[in-house]
């Protein structure tokens, strides 16, 4: 009986030839990462409860300040200071203000075949490069920082077989919203979502990350796409040459398979307050917006910024509407500057923010007030996610968000891009 990519990565991580769903394994972790959303608690657990003296391998532990950066309060500044001091003392890699943690990991660390565990639910993003990423809380992360190991249950795999090409104005973001709408917010709980089929070769790395990143919004433990030449070339171009390339066996066992033709996908919108509450933009009716946001670990990369710029070029956003744009990393920001995208954004009336989690997580920057409506490329539209408990968040692609910012209400981007 064959194995899926996810099973093969976990087998390698626990030093076995074969693992089966349901089996509990002790796995060696290739990399662990923690951000300012929880690291102050990790440090307390590490020092006070675990009485840890050193991390298992400073080169494999990464701290990234990305959630509330720059600090918006003295209390947050203390949290950042605590991280900075710990990182210095233990010589772990440390980033502050360089971008959203997952984008930094993709740019600087991830290679196919790794097991990466981080204290952030969107760690599943790394499946876009063929690595098994999964999110945990700070107690698990602290124990990994200390020992380099963790226990995991091998999950079942769901197979999403994709064929065809997207039509103009439709993106990977619309596909993943459609899939989550179809299977539900707990449709993949505890499972791996593998994305496969003839369409994969035409998907860029950004597209693949977009798909895997939101696997957790269907409850999944991880999202995965088999690494191909495109990924190998990218990883090598970043100076990383050691990797483990796995593909699912032909006789691999999937719990269930789903078929999607990309040509059938339309621009989709997740309406408040759940990510699986999804409708085609054509059915949304009249929804006026107060604010629009382009950014986050899902949708703040250069390809999405180019799409937004194409729509915004030479136009002005609607009166009394705010458009906030936060590139996913410093590198993406510099690229956007070089390509003239930042000029286009600012001339359209947008505010361009530093690279950070920003509006997506509602912790510091660009929050919305009571009764206000936001359309966002962020990852979640939970009640109160972007500010006041009585506010509304709609999720869509960068194209739909840019088009909506121009019109002042949720708008189908097809016809505005050409």
């Amino acid at each position, binding site marked *: 009986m064959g194995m899926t990519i996810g099973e093969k990565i976990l087998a390698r991580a626990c030093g076995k030839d074969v693992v089966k769903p349901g089996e509990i394994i002790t796995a060696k972790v290739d990399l662990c990462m923690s951000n300012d959303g929880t690291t102050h608690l990790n440090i307390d657990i590490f020092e006070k409860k675990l009485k840890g003296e050193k991390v298992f391998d400073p080169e494999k532990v990464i701290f990234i300040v990305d959630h509330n950066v720059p600090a918006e309060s003295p*209390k947050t500044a203390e949290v950042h200071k605590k991280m900075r001091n710990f990182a210095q003392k233990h010589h772990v890699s440390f980033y502050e203000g360089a971008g959203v943690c997952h984008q930094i990991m993709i740019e600087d660390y991830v290679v196919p075949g790794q097991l990466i565990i981080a204290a952030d639910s969107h760690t599943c993003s790394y499946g876009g490069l063929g690595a098994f990423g999964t999110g945990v809380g700070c107690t698990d992360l602290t124990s990994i920082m200390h020992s380099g190991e963790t226990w995991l249950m091998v999950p079942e795999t769901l197979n999403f077989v994709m064929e065809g090409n997207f039509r103009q104005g439709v993106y990977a973001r619309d596909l993943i919203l459609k899939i989550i709408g179809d299977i539900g917010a707990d449709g993949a*709980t505890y499972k791996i979502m593998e994305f496969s089929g003839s369409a994969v070769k035409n998907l860029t790395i950004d597209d693949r990350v977009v798909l895997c990143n939101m696997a957790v919004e269907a409850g999944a433990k991880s999202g995965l796409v088999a690494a191909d030449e495109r990924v190998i070339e990218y990883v090598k171009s970043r100076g990383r040459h050691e990797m483990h390339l796995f593909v699912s066996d032909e006789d691999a066992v999937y719990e269930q398979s789903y078929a999607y033709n990309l040509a059938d996908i339309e621009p989709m919108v997740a309406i408040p307050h759940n990510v699986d509450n999804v409708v085609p933009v054509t059915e949304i009716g009249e929804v006026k917006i107060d604010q629009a946001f382009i950014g986050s670990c899902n949708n703040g990369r250069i390809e999405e910024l180019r799409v937004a710029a194409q729509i915004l070029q030479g136009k002005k956003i609607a009166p009394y509407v705010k458009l906030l744009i936060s590139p996913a990393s410093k590198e993406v920001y510099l690229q956007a500057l070089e390509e003239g995208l930042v000029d286009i954004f600012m001339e359209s009336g947008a505010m361009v923010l530093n690279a950070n989690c920003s509006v997506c997580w509602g912790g510091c920057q660009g929050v919305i007030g009571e009764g206000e409506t936001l359309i966002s490329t962020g990852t*979640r539209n939970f009640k109160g996610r972007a500010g006041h408990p009585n506010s509304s968040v709609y999720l869509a692609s960068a194209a739909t968000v840019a088009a909506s910012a121009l019109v002042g209400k949720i708008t189908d981007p097809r016809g505005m891009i050409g």
Partner: protein
Amino acid sequence: MIKTLPVVLYEREMIGMMKGKAWKFGNDVDTDQILPSQYLLLPNVEEMKQYTFEPLDKEFASKIDVGDIIVAGENFGSGSSREQAPLVLKALGVSAVVAKSFARIFFRNAINIGLPVLICKEIYDSVDNQDTLEIDLQQGSIRNLKTNDKFTSTKLPAHVMKILEAGGLIEFLNKK
């Protein structure tokens, strides 16, 4: 006013019999509802706990008594990996969470901090808010003392039970 948790009593009683009032929630209660993002970077859980369930019930933290039990529908604790979510529940004195199903990371985090989580699909419709429930964690049984109905929860894997019995993952590792 937030009540202070008698830690010693709570730790001793955690694995065994638990009794408390039920606080009922629906499906897909995400961790942003349990503790909103803007409170995650407060210095410690004691400062965070007053905001527990703020988007759903501003008064929750002041109404709950030590030992009370959360009863929820499907997919409790979905969304963010924030361990602050189970931590604030534990800090307020919640003795267990009973749900039809849990999101993966919340479930694991709760076990890791020694907060019992029980999966039971049948009990939800037979409990009203504020009914008193009694849980026998070893047996995996839950009784509604008002109606005297008894339910059985899904048994946790032995490995997971050991972590819970130790009082959490760090305690389990320290013992080892």
